[in-house]
């Protein structure tokens, strides 16, 4: 096949392969050196993004692993390789952080910029855990720019209590704190991009 630029004719729609839990033993496989350092700690513009992952009983989960994917501070979507073997200078926009025994994850990153003028800036998140059957997607919005937050299509479709779960808290040192509650009071909003409404169907 030669690239021709013409539109691809969609022949058939294949059904997606099911997900399964990440299980308990990813710890020797998924983490890698500097996995949570999208920027070198202490470098200009760097900040700490951190939080705790809780279960339905309000207990921290010691075996969850998070991934973040975000634009740079100008809102550019980065297409640079080097997320697994970091050179210490290139911002690739991707990071991975397993939580520690107290359920806390940490990233060193920068404030994402809005990808469109006036849009609310957010970080995309995938959550994995033992006991969690499939990955969950969610977003971390920056708390500033009320106007953009109010106009955001996702946030404005949520009631105020639920909306809060997607907005990070700004720490005194410029960092961000954002907790995940998998279940129960203050349950984080998780996203379905397929629109089928059948993924992870409740019984």
């Amino acid at each position, binding site marked *: 096949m030669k*690239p*021709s*630029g013409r*539109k*691809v004719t969609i022949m058939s*729609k294949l*059904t*997606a*392969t*099911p997900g*399964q*839990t990440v*299980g*308990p*033993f*990813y*710890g*020797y*496989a*998924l983490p890698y050196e500097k996995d949570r350092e999208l920027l070198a700690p202490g470098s200009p513009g760097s900040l700490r993004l951190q939080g705790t992952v809780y*279960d*339905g009983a309000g*207990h921290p989960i010691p*075996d969850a692993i998070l*991934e973040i*994917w*975000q634009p740079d501070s100008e809102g550019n*979507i980065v*297409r640079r*390789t*080097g*997320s*697994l073997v970091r050179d210490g200078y290139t911002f*690739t926009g991707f990071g991975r952080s*397993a*939580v520690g*025994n107290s359920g806390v994850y940490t990233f060193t990153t920068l404030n*994402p910029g809005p990808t469109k003028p006036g849009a609310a800036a957010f970080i*995309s998140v*995938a959550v994995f855990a*033992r*006991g*969690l*059957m*499939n990955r*969950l997607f969610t977003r971390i919005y920056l708390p500033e720019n009320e106007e953009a937050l109010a106009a955001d299509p*996702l946030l404005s479709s*949520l009631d105020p209590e639920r909306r809060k779960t997607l907005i990070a808290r700004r720490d005194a040192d410029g960092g961000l704190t954002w907790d995940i509650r*998998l*279940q129960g009071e203050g*349950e984080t909003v*998780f996203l*379905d*991009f397929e629109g089928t*409404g*059948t*993924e*992870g169907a*409740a*019984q």
Partner: protein
Amino acid sequence: MPEDVNLETYNADALTEDLADAVTDLHKPAPQAAPAPAPRVETQQDLSAEIKALGEAYAEALKGGAPKETQPRLDFAPYRSSILRHPTKSLHHADPETIELHSPAFGHQDVHALESDLTIQHNGEPQGERIIVAGRVLDGDGRPVAGQLVEIWQANSSGRYIHKRDQHPAPLDPNFTGVGRCITGPDGSYRFTTIKPGAYPWKNHLNAWRPAHIHFSLFGTEFTQRIVTQMYFPGDQLFPLDPIYQSIVDQDARDRLVASYDHDLTEPEWALGYNWDIVLTGSKRTWTENEALGAEGDDHE
């Protein structure tokens, strides 16, 4: 890389695979005057009955016109650890925006070609049955996902993970770590050489055994396609007994996690071959053929 692994730094789980304590509470009868009897140990029979009931309820729902399910239930009580870890509100529909319509780029800077062979990471040959696992990563329209990262991890041939919390009294293999990576080719292909993992006992209930499996982690061309899953081997007698595999209540969907034995992949006097293709969720973008062929994400520099 596997040589550098420090067992003491693993921070994955403090609990092993049983949440028995947390979960038993939910099933305890209300406090009574008389001392409560010791909690009854849950057996495979108990779990199989629960799994069967959920399967039958799904079959009934299908007859009533419910859509076929294609993914695991997030709420699947027979996997006890899921009870406090599934969202109770339905997932909120969102249209993917900007960053979510792109994916992190991985390339040959990130992954060495030798990382796809799990049998050459140490000085000697690992124990067990050498196998080749190969297939293609496709999107929902059958287009190859080129130049993307595939990560795998697994138990050794005796069913033991290199993980300090794995207390299964089966031997570790000094010549096998059980971690591999590769970058898909222009046609979405991946290929690993490894050892067939053993079945693995866990503590979900008494005499619980996981079917042999390899964990797979995949990226697509959009972050919304990100998936972690498990590949199984054909004909495993443990399938009907396993709450994790059975959390996918639809048989056709479950079958999508089972590799096929492929004699064309088998290499003479060397290794048995298994084929497994992975389909990521479809994308809603309008693609041109150039994009579909993987111009993006493959780091030919």
